[in-house]
């Protein structure tokens, strides 16, 4: 059976840069960081007080996890002019949330959040749990289901509400988040930079509507990009850090290229995972250099977490949305907060301002804690 072509016809994003995909894209093009000091974290007295806060939904809202997700989903569906009841739902709500409520410790189940969100969709309804790679894998799994003819359209993406002391203290224990030391909070997350000290944790949500090209054409839908490849892998190395040479990351990128039947010469840009952790950035840079061999010095690489922080389950799909905008415009946004590239992180980084390279085909990658890796390939339509 021939494989169907799959396109993106709707996108929604809530991030530290704002509550629309336009806010996200234009913030990145302006080389602006939305990461800032978060008052409730300051009040709690912990050593990490910077983060990627989503202003659109109050942090006091007990249904914040649903609200943030639903706003992104609704925006994507509205843009696509699709109804939820005619779409599958491939989504990650990340980890359970643990925070302080009016009567004490409140535990909110990620699974229950997913079930509530899924209730208005047709099947399949799959909840992805691949740590920081979840959002990318959600897009990839939806792509595969549509490509194989199992469903006509899917909403794919993820949402995360983890900007709480519970998780900040946990990630600080793993030396993964940037501890405050009096710096400008907007500089907290510096991917690939000599001064990087970890990521800024963020809340956020990203949603995409994927559908078959036939369906999009029949409906006269606007197409933002085509999804052409997907790959996953496991590091099988360590629960907390990647292997130094980025072998697992390279494998998932290689699989995405093979899936799309493309060569490295046909890739125009990479949207990197770029967490600003010491070992993560080194491994990712090594993986990109190895995969792209003699091309790495001329392949623009950009990451979004310097601007929006690390939105965990939402990170990969927010980055796929950025990659789709790159496909549509040809412009690669800069890696916000990258100024002095660290030794070992050498790549063709986009620094300081966007670069118009007429990029048509973009590889967007995510690497999860525990070693799950996912990559999707997007192409201009």
């Amino acid at each position: 059976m021939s494989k169907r072509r799959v396109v993106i016809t709707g996108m929604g994003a809530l991030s530290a840069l704002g509550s629309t995909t336009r806010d996200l894209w234009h913030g990145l093009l302006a080389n602006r960081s939305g990461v800032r000091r978060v008052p409730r974290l300051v009040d709690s007295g912990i050593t990490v007080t910077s983060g990627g806060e989503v202003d659109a939904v109050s942090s006091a809202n007990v249904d914040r996890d649903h609200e943030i997700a639903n706003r992104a989903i609704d925006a994507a569906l509205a843009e696509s002019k699709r109804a939820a009841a005619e779409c599958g739902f491939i989504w990650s709500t990340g980890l359970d949330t643990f925070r302080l409520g009016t009567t004490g410790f409140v535990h909110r189940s990620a699974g229950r959040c997913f079930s509530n969100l899924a209730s208005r969709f047709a099947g399949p309804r799959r909840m992805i749990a691949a740590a920081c790679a979840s959002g990318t894998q959600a897009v990839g799994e939806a792509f595969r289901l549509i490509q194989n003819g199992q469903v006509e359209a899917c909403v794919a993406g993820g949402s995360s509400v983890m900007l709480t002391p519970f998780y900040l203290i946990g990630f600080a224990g793993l030396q993964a988040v940037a501890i405050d030391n009096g710096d400008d909070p907007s500089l907290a997350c510096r991917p690939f930079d000599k001064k990087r000290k970890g990521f800024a944790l963020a809340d956020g949500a990203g949603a995409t509507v994927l559908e078959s090209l036939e369906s999009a054409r029949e409906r006269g839908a606007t197409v933002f990009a085509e999804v052409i490849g997907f790959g996953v892998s496991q590091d099988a190395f360590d629960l907390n850090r990647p292997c130094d040479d980025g072998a697992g990351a390279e494998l998932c990128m290689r699989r995405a290229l093979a899936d799309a039947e493309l060569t490295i010469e046909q890739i125009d840009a990479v949207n990197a995972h770029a967490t600003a952790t010491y070992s993560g950035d080194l491994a990712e840079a090594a993986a990109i250099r190895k995969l792209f061999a003699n091309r790495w010095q001329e392949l623009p690489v950009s990451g979004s977490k310097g601007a929006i922080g690390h939105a965990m389950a939402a990170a990969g799909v927010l980055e796929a949305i950025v990659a789709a905008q790159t496909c549509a415009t040809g412009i690669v946004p800069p890696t916000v907060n990258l100024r002095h590239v660290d030794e070992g992180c050498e790549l063709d980084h986009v620094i300081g301002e966007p670069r118009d390279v007429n990029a048509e085909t973009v590889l967007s990658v995510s690497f999860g804690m525990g070693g799950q890796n996912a990559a999707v390939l997007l192409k201009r339509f």
Partner: protein
Amino acid sequence: MVYLIAAAQEDDLARIRERKPELWRLVRRYNKPVQLALAAADEVMRFSEDPSTAAVISLAPCQPGSADLYRWGNVVTSGMASGRLGNLRMNPTQTLHAVDNLAMSAFAIMHGNHAYCLGLGGAAGQAWCGLEAVFERLNAGLEEEALLMAGDQDAAEDDAPALGVALLFSTRAAPVRLVSISRSPAIVDVVPHAAKGLAALLSSIDQGLMSYVVPPEHTDGFSNVAVTLEIS
């Protein structure tokens, strides 16, 4: 075609400690659902032709965490209320207990598995999505074997009942063939649990059942599910 090669269930940590000390050394830091899922997986992978190349589909617990994690959560929220969290540190072992894809990662490390992986989250009825994913991948010829594993607990308390389940599927012929998984829309009440639904399916196979209608409480709440098996 897709065949069930082996299945295992584990519900007793003491037994694992006693009978499989090497496995226990590898899993002792994890929370109970993960320990039991990995122990069940260890059992079925003895029948695998190559554990490093099997697709791994792992269900996160619907009731994640551990008693230690929840006790720590109470410490944090008490500190938040008073604004005195300061330099409070989290034991990295407890950090692991919050991770939903832990069993998949640990399995990959134990078996050197770099293959396709799909972690499904702790929502009701994801077990059947996992079974569908197994069916899709093996029928498409993408892998020759696929592991489906799950671990869950009734509550994140020290003595709460817990269960780990693992099923190894293959394209090579065996007595139990997975014929289809079908769904029809329905709104039903559920009792979210990652492992009990698969355990109930396995017990029905023992009774020689050919078409297994998933009890409503084991579904996702939005669809009836029927699993058709051919047992020779």
